[in-house]
């Protein structure tokens, strides 16, 4: 048996209190001169038997009551013989550990992070109780299920250490379900250690309903949530965006945006915070003034050696509540020539694509656009002609019937390497590539349908689009793209498993994105020329989405890439050499889960926490509790002061014991029937 508040056991000597009170009471006597001593002496002699035992039992009951009270306060836990009374032993215990950046938020007094505090407490609980024959860990960083030797090992193993990743709690529960279904375990305890970060819990996700339903069908699964949603009084995080290396004459410089976010209450007083830049082992410090939200340095320039074509750097903040968001790594390289290939079955449309892509956003960028006819592409001649450039192409515009065969495979590989393909409908009624291809010929699970005309309506208008992310996101100034002004005269329906990014007023998709592991695949249902839509004529939308697609596609071409930490961020982690940080380098298996800079020959990769980790807030505990409706669930705050949910299994036993002891004491203390002496006052003679 263990205790959640073992310090309360210091009060155990208080069990002597009833005896002490008894003794004090004995000495609290009054003195009285007494004549009938012979009866007192006889009475005392009589008490040597059952009466003395009764008195002893009363004292014992009082001692037991006090002891039970102390045990109640000390929060006894299941385990040992008492545990077998309060709760059955689990066959297995699964630990779902949130290793996200926000879990590294520290208590500034103890220097202990939420993750380590939760692990320490959990290890204590499991050590004191029974955790079954299997102790399994699912960590949010790797998502892998691994067996752990003992609860104490949780404190040392790397897979329970800090990471720069985000967590996916519903995904971890789904993994748990998969394990439970595969192993048909009996009684299983599932412990979730998390800080209830909104991003990690994704409470709006439809997955929760399915998870609840599946868990409801399993018997003997108990969920324990060790939650620590307390926010620090204040915390700063830093990140870098838009790192670019430019040359001006004989000089070179890095241009980057630095964003400092502030969480918590820093007071109304403005204060300055030093930001330390490190590039090529050269350090510099810039003081920025913080307001309530934080601060930002847009277009900050750092001069570098012209010979430094690529490399890495970092920005850092002074230490605060969360050490993992105080440093951000970045890598840079020369901007590559942005190449795009347009495959079109129509000259006008091909030219429209070329014009929109040829003009760079920044005059320092170089764009190279190749337009080839679909016939040449299908024969492979043109593709072969530009084969040398294929590896350096970031965007492929395919405005023709969907290809098949080697060309389709080539395009799939193109996407797998992180680049972007945009499919536009073939201008003719042809739905598929050369020959007698089936109407059902698909690429990326999609295929074109028939052309749609507005009928009695004059045009199709755009009724809905996603302005928060992806190609149609609002521009930097915060203004939305003018999709409501887009006029579409004809569009071609398509069937696709992708997610629509924009819809017409008849609910048909205008733009859709197909989910892929890397890169991006888009389907657009109309063409830019005036015969089909106002995309080319009004220009802005068309230009922005093509430039964005080209920019993202070309990111894969850069030798320097910024990535969010995750298990698959480094495809072959052994090939990547850790460049920074040099201290506390992670194990090979943990690379990619920690922030740092990795190098593989000429390629650089900076791994950092995802942007959402800097801004996410905690989900209210009531909302989290509601997620577990219908499941066996108890929430336990990591703060030891509230562990009543767990301890209740055993403290009830001690509470009952205390009540029984008090009742027994009361029963034993009841005065016996005092026989009134019938004293005859008349002479008996």
């Amino acid at each position, binding site marked *: 048996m263990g205790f959640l508040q073992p310090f309360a056991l210091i009060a155990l000597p208080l069990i002597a209190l009833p005896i002490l009170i008894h003794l004090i009471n004995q000495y*609290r006597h009054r003195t009285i001169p007494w004549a009938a001593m012979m009866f007192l002496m006889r009475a005392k002699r009589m008490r040597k038997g059952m009466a003395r035992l009764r008195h002893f039992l009363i004292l014992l009951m009082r001692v037991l009551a006090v002891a039970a009270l102390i045990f109640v306060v000390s929060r006894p836990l299941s385990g040992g013989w008492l545990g077998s009374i309060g709760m059955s032993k689990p066959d297995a215990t699964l630990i779902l550990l949130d290793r996200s950046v926000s879990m590294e938020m520290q208590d500034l007094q103890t220097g202990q992070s939420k993750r380590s505090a939760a692990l320490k407490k959990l290890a204590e609980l499991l050590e004191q109780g029974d955790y079954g024959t299997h102790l399994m860990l699912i960590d949010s960083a790797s998502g892998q299920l691994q067996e752990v030797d003992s609860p104490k090992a949780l404190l040392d193993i790397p897979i329970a250490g800090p990471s720069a990743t985000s967590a996916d709690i519903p995904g971890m529960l789904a993994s748990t379900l998969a394990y439970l279904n595969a192993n048909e375990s009996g009684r299983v305890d599932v412990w979730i250690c998390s800080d209830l970060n909104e991003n990690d819990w994704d409470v709006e996700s439809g997955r929760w309903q399915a998870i609840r339903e599946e868990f409801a069908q399993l018997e003997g699964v108990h969920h324990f949530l060790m939650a620590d949603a307390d926010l620090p009084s204040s915390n700063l995080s830093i990140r870098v965006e838009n790192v670019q290396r430019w040359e001006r004459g004989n000089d070179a410089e890095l241009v980057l945006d630095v964003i400092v976010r502030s969480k918590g209450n820093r007071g109304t007083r403005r204060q300055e915070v030093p930001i330390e830049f490190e590039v090529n082992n050269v350090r510099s410090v810039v003081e920025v003034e913080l307001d309530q939200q934080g601060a930002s340095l847009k277009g900050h320039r750092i001069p570098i050696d012209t010979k430094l074509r690529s490399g890495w750097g970092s920005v850092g903040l002074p230490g605060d509540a969360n050490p993992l968001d105080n440093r951000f790594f970045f890598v840079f390289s020369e901007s590559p020539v942005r190449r795009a290939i347009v495959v079109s079955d129509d000259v006008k449309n091909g030219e429209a694509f070329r014009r929109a892509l040829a003009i760079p956003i920044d005059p320092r960028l170089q764009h190279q656009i190749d337009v080839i006819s679909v016939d040449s592409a299908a024969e492979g001649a043109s593709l072969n002609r530009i084969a040398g450039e294929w590896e350096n192409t970031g965007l492929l515009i395919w405005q023709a019937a969907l290809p098949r065969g080697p060309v389709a495979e080539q395009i799939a590989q193109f996407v797998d390497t992180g680049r972007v393909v945009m499919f536009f409908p073939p201008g003719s009624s042809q739905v598929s590539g050369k020959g007698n291809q089936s109407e059902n010929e698909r690429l990326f699970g999609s295929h074109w349908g028939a052309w749609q005309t507005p009928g009695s309506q004059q045009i199709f208008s755009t009724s809905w689009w996603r302005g928060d992310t992806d190609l149609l996101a609002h521009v930097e100034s915060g203004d939305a793209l003018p999709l409501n002004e887009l006029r579409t005269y004809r569009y071609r329906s398509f069937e696709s498993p992708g997610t629509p990014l924009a819809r017409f007023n008849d609910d048909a998709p205008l733009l859709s994105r197909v989910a892929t592991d890397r890169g991006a695949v888009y389907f657009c249902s109309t063409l830019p020329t005036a015969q089909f839509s106002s995309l080319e004529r009004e220009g802005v939308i068309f230009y922005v989405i093509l430039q964005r697609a080209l920019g993202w596609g070309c990111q894969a071409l850069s030798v320097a890439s910024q990535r969010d930490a995750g298990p698959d961020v480094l495809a072959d982690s052994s090939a990547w050499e850790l460049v920074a940080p040099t201290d506390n380098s992670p194990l090979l298996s943990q690379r990619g889960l920690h922030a740092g800079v990795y190098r593989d020959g000429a390629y650089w990769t900076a791994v950092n926490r995802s942007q959402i980790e800097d801004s996410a807030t905690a989900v209210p505990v009531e909302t989290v509790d509601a997620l577990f409706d219908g499941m066996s669930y108890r929430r336990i705050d990591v703060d030891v002061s509230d562990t009543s949910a767990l301890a209740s299994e055993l403290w009830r036993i001690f509470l009952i014991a205390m009540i029984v002891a008090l009742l027994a004491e009361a029963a034993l203390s009841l005065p016996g029937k005092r026989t009134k002496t019938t004293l005859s006052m008349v002479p008996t003679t």
Partner: protein
Amino acid sequence: MLQLKRDYLDQKVLERLSTLQLHARLPMIGSVSGKHRSPIRGSSLEFAEYRKYVPGDDPRRLDWRAYARNDRYYIKEFEADTNLRMCLVVDTSGSMNFAHDGMRKLDYARRIAGTLAYIAAQQGDAVGLYCAGTGFHKEIPPKRSAAHLSAVLDELGAMEASGETGLANVLHETAERVPQRALIIILSDLFIEPEVVRNCLDHLRFRKHDVAVFHLLEQRELALEFDRPMRFVDMEGGEPILADPTVIGAQYQRALEIYLEDMNTVIQETEVDYHRIRIDENYDDVLARFLLGRTPKRHK
């Protein structure tokens, strides 16, 4: 009337009891004529019995009427009236200091003894006093004079209680020292074993004494009604006892019960005039009850 200056004697009580007389339950052998029966035939007006004439008898005491009826000689005998020797034995052990509302058992005994002494003296009986502490604290043999009564009353007023009880020894001694039949009145709380009491009473009864016992008790001794632990200090100098009455109350009651039952048995078997008294009772009522109880019943 005797001029009384003793505060334990109450004039009103004496006046109230003046109509009552102290009677002996057994024939007494007194020195002078009195109001009590004597075992010796005398010349009182009270007929006792007929007895056959034997030579030497005074022929004047022959009942000629009986001779005329039966033709036999009978001597007509009459009761002899004599006075009474009353010996007051007062327990002066420390336990007699136990008090109720300021009234000690000794004070209570003093009032009863003083009043009885006065009543006895008034009817011409001899009064003696024996103070029983560890031994005889004071011994005043019974005499009839007014001066002697004054000495007895003075001693009653002056006596104090202390030390262990020696009542048993004193009673045995008294049984031997009082030479002729007497009324022995014992005033004590009798906190001694009933068997010891039995021996004393048997001894007194063997010596033909008429024995009356005033057993003085106090309410708290009977109930032991305390709600907290008490340190009971022995008033006779023994070891104090620390006890919680709420705990040992039942046992105390049981011990008291046994004691009283045993005492009842002793009283019944020794046939003494026994009065169990709570000292919160009015002593004049107790005395009235005592005197009336001893009044001889008239023969019809």
